[in-house]
């Protein structure tokens, strides 16, 4: 099988995953597409949204469609790093026993790790997870455990702020996407979510998704293949470099936001890791679109989810982050001209 055919087959599979997930989750096509992109770009995703909009459902649907093992942990204030690694108990014979915790339990078969309410977990837990995300390894029992196929999905409840530990900027930078999942606005979707009984039983809903559509353990290889197969032209490189510069010094690109002193807004622009994540994701978008080259629209499609949480504002403006970040990204998209 030639590599082109292989890529085509995988693309069909990727689109099939999307279609299957859409059976279980309606009105969230944008989110489904971006999670799929992250999956094939081998990036982790931070989901943010109201309570009960279907964050868990969409992740369970993905986990079922891609196959492999799924693990879920609830973030709480008293959760300690060790709770993720091992589990101690006294067995029926009265002997103390130590067993691998949720992170290690599945070994290399772990493909989807869902950390619910990550901002409720202590920073120690967060840093363990960050290492697991960045290196896909954890040290335990005097050896390293590897989870090469793991994709971490974390969810942050934006309603409450009490007893929460806000993620450090370095932690947020490790997520490829920060997705804001909102309640669907389309009236027909809203009506279906409330009155269609099919959407009331989540387990039954997840069962409608065809399981194991791809071999999840080949994802890393195919992701690398995708990255190699999609090229970026010189004009495209210039465009991405402009975007990067604009994230660091928006005033130089005539970017203005009402009520914001642009010269004092940015503390730190996008990091090199952020930009590489941007390009990785953009290549997957191009590949899903059936192209072997990048276009500005590929980058624009993922820019709000990739760059929004990677630009750090001065403390004066940090409190208004959500509002300013959206406006900044929209302005960057509008003001950076290409081709040039």
């Amino acid at each position, binding site marked *: 099988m030639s590599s082109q055919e292989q890529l085509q087959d995988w693309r069909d599979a990727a689109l099939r995953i999307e279609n299957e997930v859409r059976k279980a989750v309606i009105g969230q096509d944008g989110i489904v597409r971006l999670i799929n992109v992250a999956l094939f770009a081998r990036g982790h995703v931070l989901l943010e949204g109201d309570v009960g909009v279907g964050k868990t459902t969409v992740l369970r649907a993905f986990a079922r469609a891609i196959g492999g093992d799924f693990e879920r942990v609830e973030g709480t204030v008293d959760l300690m790093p060790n709770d993720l690694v091992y589990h101690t108990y006294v067995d029926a014979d009265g002997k103390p026993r130590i067993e691998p915790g949720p992170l290690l339990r599945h070994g290399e078969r772990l493909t989807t790790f869902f950390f619910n309410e990550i901002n409720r977990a202590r920073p120690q837990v967060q840093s363990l997870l960050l290492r697991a995300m960045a290196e896909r390894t954890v040290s335990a029992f005097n050896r390293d455990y590897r989870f090469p196929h793991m994709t971490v999905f974390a969810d942050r409840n934006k309603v409450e702020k009490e007893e929460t530990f806000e993620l450090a900027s370095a932690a947020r930078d490790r997520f490829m996407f920060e997705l804001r999942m909102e309640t669907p606005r389309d009236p027909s979707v809203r009506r279906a979510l409330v009155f269609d009984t099919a959407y009331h039983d989540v387990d039954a809903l997840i069962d409608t998704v065809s399981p194991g559509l791809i071999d999840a353990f080949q994802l890393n290889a195919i992701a690398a293949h995708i990255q190699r197969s999609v090229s970026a*032209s010189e*004009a495209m490189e210039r465009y991405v470099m402009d975007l990067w510069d604009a994230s660091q010094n928006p005033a130089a690109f005539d970017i203005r936001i009402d009520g914001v002193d642009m010269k004092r807004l940015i503390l730190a622009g996008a990091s090199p890791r952020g930009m590489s994540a941007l390009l990785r994701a953009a290549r997957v978008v191009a590949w899903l679109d059936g*192209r072997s080259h990048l*276009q500005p*629209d590929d980058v624009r499609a993922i820019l709000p989810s990739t760059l929004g949480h990677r630009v750090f504002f001065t403390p004066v403006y940090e409190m208004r982050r959500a509002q300013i970040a959206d406006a900044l990204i929209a302005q960057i998209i509008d003001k950076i*001209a*290409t081709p040039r």
Partner: protein
Amino acid sequence: MKPLIRALLCASLLQLTPLANAEQTAEQAAAPAEGTTTPTPSATETPADSAGKAPEADGATPAPEATAEAPAAPAGPVAQVLQPRAWGHSVGDLLTQRVLLAIDGRATGLPKLPDPGRIGVWLERRPARLDTDADGRRWLVLDYQLINAPQTLTAITVPAFELRTDDGPLQVPAWTFSAAPLTPRTAFAGNGLDALQPDRGAPAVDTAPLRHRLLLWSGLTGALLLAWGGWLVWRNVRSARAQPFAQAQRTLRGLKDDAPDAWQALHRAFDRTAGASLQPASLHRLFERAPHFAPLRADIERFYADSAARFFGDGGAAASSPRALVRALARIERRHES
């Protein structure tokens, strides 16, 4: 010619009339009209020189003496008449007679008022009216207007007539008054003083300063209007030249269709028109903001597809011509702006 002859005839007749009338008066005096029930058809007149006696009676006092001089001996009782002033009249004057409606001191009624109308060449009788004075006496008020201009001082007689009252006929005697021309016919003979002098020219006021000021202000106004018009034209031309596609058209003038600069200049013009950097996925914003470009939608989309292939893809043969497209776009832009 004919009007001139007619005018001359009229003039000679007018000159002759006083004499003719004098004869008529004499005739009337010789032959008293007995039992006349209708007023004499024409008033009599006597030129000043022939009618030596002017009536002495004042308008304010009854003048039975004046009536006694009437040429005709009236049959029946004679009315008491209050006459107006008998001299100093000229064309247009109104003379009012008041006739007391009483026979032998007894009041009487008048079933029919005398008819209005022309009395001879000189007078016109206005519609008569009745009037009651403070003593309860009833008067017939007759207004005569002098409607002809006498050439010389002329005595004019209002003819006698008879009123048919409820108690029998009542005689109103004839009455004579003098009328004078407004101007003499010929004031001075010769010496260049013709009767009708030409209009005297008004003294000429020096209008040179006025003219100068008028010229100055008209000049200034004209200059101002010209400057304003020029500014309008200049502004329109400048804004037309500053329009995105007009500018792009100038940039593209020196470039070939396959020059990257040409494509980029056209991209910038699209971006400026839409107010944002456009890519195929955001092209709808162009047509939302500038719907007048919608007819070229297919061409614009092809340009973006070709541009994407050229700058971001594998090149490929570009079918679009930026120069042709910018011409069409600039034309639409110009039409829309004007």
